[in-house]
């Protein structure tokens, strides 16, 4: 079996790209209106807790990925069932990510190109990198995370002249319920999906650094998200922000520095494509690993292409329009993803801790009778 080892920095880069991925183009916490940035901060705290739980699980079983841990904790039969559920969840989420990216491309500029073509082209690259393995993926992310963060910084700096601080006030105007909803949504959509890294980033070169990698990655990714959200709000104001699908794209298109530095929304598009590509690849990787695990195969590579093709197929079936898609995203997604993001990890952690304790005790009993 191929153990793909990546370094801490590569791990963090992957998580950052993953977080920035699709969520950089459209804002998620819009239910909280002017306070969506507060919702993101709250969700970030929750996400850090989840990341901590997952890191704890990984530290208990540093050699295994989540699927193996599930099998160890729940036994073969029940374990397979849960793995199946997880694989389905990952597969489905992967399709959503794919649709997100291609819809953005399609709506923002290539309006006459059939979406399926863009999907196939994107998936082709994903299949390629996933087949090359986690190591290439890690190195790729490590290389591209620098320009991506650079682009985002440039974007924010150039947006400063158009910002209006009044757009944020009054703070806390929407009330508690929308706030909680928004927090839940932000958590469900990009921030809480750390669970996938227990599958994808299952081998780090330094064994004990899962805490560092998961939590730093989530923290930096979350901060970038927060900053992008703030920029959009400050430039556009809530009225426009809530009225368009791709806020960042609009904000970037308004940048005009002295008449010559303008029309640079392409920069943000680059960020989206590069980061979104990594996000999609990770879903493809994790799903393939899940499928291989269900059938008890050690290596996942053989199943990558069919999984990718099935993803494309499902993306055709799923939603007919972006309206339907967005509605589903807001209404159903946060609840659908909750068990996978939070409930299962907590259960696994409890069982794992218990198991560890028992084995420790039994070892102690054996050594000192």
């Amino acid at each position, binding site marked *: 079996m191929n153990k793909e080892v990546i370094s801490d920095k590569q791990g963090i880069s992957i998580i950052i790209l993953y977080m920035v991925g699709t969520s950089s183009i459209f804002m998620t916490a819009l239910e909280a209106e002017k306070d969506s940035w507060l919702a993101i901060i709250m969700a970030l705290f929750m996400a850090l807790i989840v990341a901590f739980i997952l890191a704890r699980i990984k530290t208990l079983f540093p050699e295994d990925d989540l699927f193996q841990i599930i099998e160890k904790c729940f036994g073969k039969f029940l374990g397979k069932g849960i793995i199946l559920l997880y694989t389905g969840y990952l597969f489905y989420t992967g399709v959503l990510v794919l649709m997100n990216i291609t819809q953005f491309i399609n709506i923002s500029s290539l309006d006459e190109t059939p979406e399926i073509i863009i999907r196939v082209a994107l998936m082709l690259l994903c299949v390629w990198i996933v087949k090359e393995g986690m190591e290439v993926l890690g190195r790729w992310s490590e290389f591209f995370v620098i320009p991506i963060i650079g682009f985002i910084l440039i974007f924010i700096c150039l947006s400063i002249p158009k910002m209006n601080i009044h757009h944020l006030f009054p703070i806390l105007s929407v009330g508690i319920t929308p706030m909680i909803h928004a927090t839940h949504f932000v958590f469900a959509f990009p921030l809480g999906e750390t669970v996938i890294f227990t599958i994808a980033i299952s081998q780090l070169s330094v064994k004990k650094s899962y805490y560092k990698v998961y939590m730093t990655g989530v923290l930096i990714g979350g901060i970038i998200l927060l900053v992008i959200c703030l920029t959009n709000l400050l430039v556009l104001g809530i009225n426009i922000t809530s009225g368009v699908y791709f806020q960042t794209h609009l904000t970037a298109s308004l940048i005009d520095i002295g008449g010559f530095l303008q029309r640079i929304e392409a920069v943000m598009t680059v960020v989206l494509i590069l980061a979104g590509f990594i996000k999609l690849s990770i879903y493809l990787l994790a799903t393939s690993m899940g499928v291989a695990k269900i059938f008890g*195969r050690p290596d996942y590579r*053989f199943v990558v292409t069919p999984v990718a093709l099935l993803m494309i*197929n499902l993306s055709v079936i799923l*939603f007919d329009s972006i309206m339907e898609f967005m509605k*589903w995203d807001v209404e*159903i997604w946060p609840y*659908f993803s909750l068990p996978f993001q939070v409930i299962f990890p907590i259960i696994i952690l409890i069982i794992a801790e218990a198991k560890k304790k028992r084995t420790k005790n039994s070892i102690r009993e054996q050594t000192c009778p």
Partner: protein
Amino acid sequence: MNTVAVIFLYAIIGSIETVSLYKNNPKKECVLYEIALLTAFIISLLLSAGVELPNPADYIRHMVERLVG
């Protein structure tokens, strides 16, 4: 036209991937691969022919709505 494109595409992918697959992998992998590819092929074929397939999003919606209310 779409159907032809789908058949063509799958034929290329299938034939090329199968060759290296059979060389490097045990039989079980190959069988799994072929089954998965065939499923994808059938779905694509149906889609290209314009058949309306059941949408899993609806089932998930029902499920979630029943659970959450």
